[in-house]
């Protein structure tokens, strides 16, 4: 009731008998392969084979492949017909795929590859930026193919639909800012300056940063995923072959709506942050509401506020460009949509921070 093999006069006879379903004796197979090396001919004997499944067929197939590679004669005529048919079927089509593997240089190759990929990435992003600017140009000269519905949808999505989460997060940030500041300022009896701290902090930068990070995670990610899925479904190809500029159609409405809404979201975040600060001040530091108001107004400067709003505007450009760029350059499978989304969020946040650093030093130098 098993598989047996016997090497006599350079003829390897493999006898299969009984129930050989789920045949999985790798040791025996390895021994068999070794004997195969020494033989000139392989004969299969399956006259008393009763039951089998693909496991046996796969094993026989491997044996025959090895035999063929060594020009050893194979005789399968004594196997049951259906098993013979199956193995023949597996052997008939023998198309070699065009080489996928090549020489592997290991580390060096990886290094070169990543260098090339980086170069490619830079080229692609230049091209993307160029397209986007051209597309904006077409928009302002009224020649862009921008669908009103798309634009309204995008505007609603990053407009009033984002207010809830922006409010919550910036309220909490204002709260935290005030709370952490209060612990220190209390030591000098200067709690009242919490109002100034929060007002300056939120308007100058924190409002914009919070709005930016939320919108990167919320809207930037959805841009990349939406456009990426369109890429997977060949919708982007359809647009291209219809002769429609992809940037006008997909990037422009998203870019415009984020550029428009981000400054407003920033202002909203400023206000919510200040309300958060006021909550801490009033509830924990016994500062009265009118007092807090007075100090906030005193600390409030239009320049700071405008700098913050400008940051918001800049973040809008960065987030929408990153989201759309990774969406448009997404691969063709489910995995790459995930990858594009991650990349979009991570790179928009990184670029936002870097840009803020640069902008801050420029403003510093200008004394603003």
């Amino acid at each position: 009731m098993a598989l047996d093999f016997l090497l006599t006069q350079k003829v390897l006879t493999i006898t299969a008998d009984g129930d050989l379903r789920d045949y999985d004796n790798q040791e025996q197979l390895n021994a068999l392969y070794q004997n195969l090396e020494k033989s000139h001919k392989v004969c299969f004997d399956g006259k008393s084979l009763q039951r089998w499944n693909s496991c046996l067929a796969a094993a026989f197939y491997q044996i025959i492949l090895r035999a063929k590679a060594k020009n050893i004669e194979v005789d399968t005529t004594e196997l049951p017909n259906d098993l013979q048919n199956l193995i023949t079927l597996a052997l008939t089509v023998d198309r070699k795929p065009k080489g996928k593997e090549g020489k592997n240089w290991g580390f060096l190759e990886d290094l070169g590859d990543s260098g090339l990929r980086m170069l490619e990435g830079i080229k692609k992003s230049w091209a993307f930026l160029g397209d986007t600017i051209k597309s904006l140009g077409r928009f302002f000269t009224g020649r862009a193919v921008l669908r009103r519905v798309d634009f309204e949808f995008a505007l609603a999505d990053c407009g009033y639909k984002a207010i809830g989460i922006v409010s919550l997060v910036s309220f909490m940030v204002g709260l935290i800012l005030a709370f952490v500041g209060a612990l220190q300022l209390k030591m000098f009896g200067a709690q009242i300056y919490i109002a100034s701290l929060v007002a300056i902090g939120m308007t100058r930068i924190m409002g914009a940063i919070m709005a930016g990070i939320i919108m990167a995670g919320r809207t930037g990610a959805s841009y990349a995923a939406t456009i990426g899925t369109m890429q997977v479904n060949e919708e982007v190809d359809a647009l291209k072959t219809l002769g429609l500029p992809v940037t006008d159609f997909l990037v422009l409405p998203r870019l415009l709506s984020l550029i428009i809404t981000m400054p407003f979201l920033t202002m909203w975040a400023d206000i919510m942050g200040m309300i958060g600060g006021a909550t801490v001040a009033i509830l924990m530091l016994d500062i009265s509401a009118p007092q807090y108001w007075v100090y906030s107004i005193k600390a409030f400067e239009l320049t700071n506020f405008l700098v913050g709003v400008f940051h918001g505007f800049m973040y809008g450009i960065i987030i929408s460009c990153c989201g759309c760029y990774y969406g448009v350059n997404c691969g063709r499978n489910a995995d790459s949509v995930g990858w594009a989304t991650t990349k979009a969020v991570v790179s928009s946040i990184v670029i936002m921070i870097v840009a803020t650093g640069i902008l801050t030093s420029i403003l510093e130098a200008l004394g603003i």
Partner: protein
Amino acid sequence: MTEDSVKIKAEGLNIAYGSNVLMQNLNFEIKKGDIFIIMGGSGCGKSSLLRLLTGLKSVDEGKIWIDGVRFDNAEPAQKKKIMQNCGILYQSGALFSSMTLAENVAMPLQQYTNYSDDLIKDLVAFKLALVGLKGYEDFYPAEISGGMKKRAGLARALALDPDILYFDEPSAGLDPVSSKLLDDLILEINKSLGTTIVIITHELSSIFAIGKDSIFLDAETKTISAYGNPKELLKNPPNKNVLHFLSGGKK
């Protein structure tokens, strides 16, 4: 209840999405080792019928037996066990894009058997060779053509030596040569493994080349309006819709 030679039996089966009734009171039997064709115009509910037969959609009205065991109201564990004996080739191949072809085919083996890694490797090589994809083990689905994806999907469907193989429009999107190759492969698998094969198709050449039995889902009457061997049906069409369909739209 059912005789030994019947693999799948449906009784009084309805196909509906809410109030949108697609088919009513379907009765048919699929014999062991049969090549059974489900034909019908686009949108008449063929894919939906397949979803019922494979447990992807719950049955509202009617009964299904597989191997004499009630399938439609079986416990989830029981259903899963029955489904292990069914292979399905989806319309687009439905390969997992993050896995190589070898990993795709190996997945059901790793999930449901305790074969050794060596055996799984041999089995994967064998199944891929069966469908004519020898040497493509390390390719990703995105790197091969549509016809090859279908065949790779077939290799995965064959992984566990299923008793039943379901195909949803196997030749859709394939050129005539690839589609003929796939038909030959289906015949070969049916012959050597004795697999019961259920095919949804409206490809006339396939229907006549490989179909042993068939049903015609008639969108007009919402029932099976023809049942039997496709060639016989063309010779003696029971109604004009079937004739119209089987003669390729000629009046």
